[in-house]
């Protein structure tokens, strides 16, 4: 007979059985038995003490995004749990697999407004794949295995386990085992064979096809399958922000990022293509612009693992349900080889226009203050286009997405759906644990840095090698841009009074350098990359610069402005 151990220790064993080696957390009253058990497992479970629970959730996200494994986060009840809410919602929107374990008061006290009691399961149900309260030690192993199966399978997402204190203390047997079947849950829908044939027929018949590559390709580990699919039929492809590293930036079929601040060519051609092929993306409003006019001329095929995404925003002629790791090669096998040379050439005039009017002035400005785009591009080039790009949210994010270049898969860590400011710093910490052999470059603004600036403490303690590139423009830049363009230059509470970031970095013993002159940029970046461990590179960038091109809200996706002056006409 197996020996009885505490529910808290069962959690440790179940986590190890799930292959967990790293967790991000913060202790507190209602999770103390678990932390006590963890004390004896420190040699097998690397617990990273963050400085705020929100950061634990974002770090788990960053870990998951680069590693492909489920991120784990451990916090206490009440405020500890509610502090993770932003990260949980973020993971739900961006299909990131994380398991958040929250302490809870004992079951005998539930509902009595006990100290640090909070109804975490009810709060998190709408923003999780599954939320469950563990009320007995007997349930622990089942719940943990179920949580990992649900978080990581099908379309991934967050799971919350609310762990009542008595269940942590009670004794039960731990029975090894895992779960990969739940009767009511079909993670990968069956693929209709007819849909594969019909998709191939539609693609073979298309004269002007355009593929939209989403994060589903990365999540499905189908990067190679996508490439074979595109190359066989000569299909030009644009990427969503989360799909950016699913296709190398310099691949001849890559026509750039889609959407609001995407490439001119991909958005113009969305309105001219005769067949739109979406793969693992969800037609977010930042991609489609005005929905009523979006690609009306085109037939549409939607490859997705989540049936609820089909016809949710954009009605399609054909859905190819299933795992794109299987569906893409199945369709590829039926494709005729094609080049679509003329159609692909037709993107070039827009590429040239964007290069001349937007890109060159952004990455090779002759004079004036530093620009965000040139900083991003030089960091990318000097890391061999091989680094992990982590961003915060705002102009820094859009500039990073536009000017960073990708050759490696799983290289994008950003908050796309929720647009969570403060995501960058903790997510970058998580990424350094998820991809310890890679360079992790974080681009963030002076607003976002201050939202989770306490995590410099975690970086200090862990010596996490985050290369922090602070694009400091003394503004909440993206909101300021919208105020300039759509609110008559009324800069309502967007100028940002900043602390001395050099002094802050010094206080945390993090090497720091500020660059203001273009002539010093390369050397500063080299110093950052060459310095082992963390580094803060502060770039004093042009204050009132705008992310261009831009599809203004409510406009057709091909109606893009190249400069802010165009808007006044």
């Amino acid at each position, binding site marked *: 007979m197996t020996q009885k151990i505490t529910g808290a220790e069962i959690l440790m064993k179940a986590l190890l059985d799930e292959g967990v080696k790293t967790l991000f957390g913060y202790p507190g009253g209602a999770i103390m038995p678990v932390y006590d058990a963890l004390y004896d497992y420190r040699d097998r479970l690397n617990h990273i003490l963050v400085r705020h629970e929100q950061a634990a959730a974002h770090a788990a996200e960053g870990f998951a995004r680069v590693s492909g494994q489920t991120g784990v986060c451990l916090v206490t009840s009440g405020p500890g749990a509610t502090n993770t809410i932003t990260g949980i919602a973020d993971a739900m929107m961006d299909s990131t697999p994380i398991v958040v374990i929250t302490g809870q008061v004992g079951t005998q006290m539930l509902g009595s407004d006990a100290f640090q009691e909070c109804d975490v399961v009810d709060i998190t149900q709408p923003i999780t794949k599954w939320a469950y309260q563990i009320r007995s030690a007997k349930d622990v192993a089942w719940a943990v295995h179920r949580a990992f199966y649900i978080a990581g399978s099908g379309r991934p997402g967050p799971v919350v386990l609310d762990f009542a204190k008595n269940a942590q203390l009670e004794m039960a047997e731990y029975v090894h*085992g895992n779960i990969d079947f739940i009767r*009511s849950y079909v993670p990968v829908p069956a693929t209709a064979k007819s849909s594969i044939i019909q998709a191939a027929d539609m693609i073979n018949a298309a004269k002007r096809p355009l593929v939209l590559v989403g994060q589903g390709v990365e999540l499905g580990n189908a990067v190679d399958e996508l490439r074979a699919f595109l190359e066989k039929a000569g299909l030009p492809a644009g990427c969503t922000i989360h799909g950016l590293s699913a296709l190398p930036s310099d691949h001849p079929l890559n026509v750039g990022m889609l959407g609001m601040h995407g490439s001119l060519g991909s958005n113009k051609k969305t309105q001219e293509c005769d067949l739109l092929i979406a793969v693992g993306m969800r037609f977010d409003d930042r991609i489609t612009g005005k929905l009523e006019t979006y690609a009306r001329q085109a037939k549409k095929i939607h490859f997705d693992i989540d*049936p609820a995404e089909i016809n949710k925003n954009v009605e399609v002629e054909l859905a190819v349900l299933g795992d794109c790791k299987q569906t893409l090669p199945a369709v590829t096998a039926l494709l005729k080889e094609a080049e679509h040379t003329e159609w692909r050439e037709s993107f070039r005039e827009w590429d040239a226009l964007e290069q001349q009017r937007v890109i060159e002035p952004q990455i090779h400005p002759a004079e004036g203050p530093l620009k965000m785009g040139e900083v991003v591009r030089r960091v990318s080039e000097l890391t061999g286009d091989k680094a992990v790009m982590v961003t915060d949210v705002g102009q820094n994010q859009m500039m990073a997405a536009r000017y960073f270049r990708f050759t490696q898969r799983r290289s994008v860590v950003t908050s796309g759906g929720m647009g969570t400011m403060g995501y960058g710093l903790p997510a970058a910490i998580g990424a350094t644990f998820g991809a310890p052999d890679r360079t992790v470059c974080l681009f963030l603004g002076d607003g976002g840095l201050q939202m989770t600036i306490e995590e410099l403490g975690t970086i200090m303690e862990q010596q996490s090698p985050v290369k922090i590139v602070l694009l400091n423009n003394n503004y909440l830049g993206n909101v300021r841009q919208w105020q300039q363009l759509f609110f008559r230059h009324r800069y309502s509470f967007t100028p940002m009074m900043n602390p001395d970031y050099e002094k802050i970095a010094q206080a945390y013993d993090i090497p720091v350098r500020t660059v203001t002159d273009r002539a010093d940029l390369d050397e500063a970046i080299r110093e950052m990359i060459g310095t082992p461990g963390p580094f803060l590179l502060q770039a004093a960038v042009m204050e009132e610069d705008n992310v261009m091109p831009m599809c203004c809200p409510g406009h057709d996706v091909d109606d893009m402005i190249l400069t802010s002056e165009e808007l006044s006409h």
Partner: protein
Amino acid sequence: MTGNHSTSPHTPAPAPAEKQPAGNDTKLFTIIVFSENLAGVLNSVTNVFTRRQLNIESLNVSASAYEHIHRYTITTYTDERTIRTVVKQLEKKIDVLHAQYFTNDEIFIMDQALYKIATAKLVENREISKAIRLHDGKIVEVNSTYAIISKEGLPEETLALYEKLKSFDCLLQYVSSGVVAVTKSLREPLAEFLYLREEERRAMEKPLDL
């Protein structure tokens, strides 16, 4: 949605056209959902409606013909495109087994209503007992203070008796169960789903996880 799960005649439901001013193809749909009997599923089911700004007209939760499986009957006014997505979002919930939507001609529906009226009014106005008979209501209890009338039928029928009794100014309480429904289809999708999943489970030699 409100806390009251059944149609309340005291706050009459606005006409369908007023509910969804954007579209004129709005109609009443009945959604039948089956879930595992686990805590918290009801919340996650109703949450799908809340997010899509749909008011639940009636909601009935009960045991189903299968052990450990709960059955939800929900009615709401919306258009077909929305309800199609809603049903998929319901099925996406981990513990939901099956969800399907129906229009009224595809299902057999029934509502159960109870009316508590003042005995004094019943005695002094003979039209009241006449109306009860005409509407096929059953008087199930009478004492010196009140009488209880029971009626089952289509929602519009139970509502019609309510309107009638209200016009006599005798009504003390009224409650409706909300509709329950069974499909008229010759197929049983839940049974098919369960059968399929059981076959898959056996083929994969997996333990049963409810």
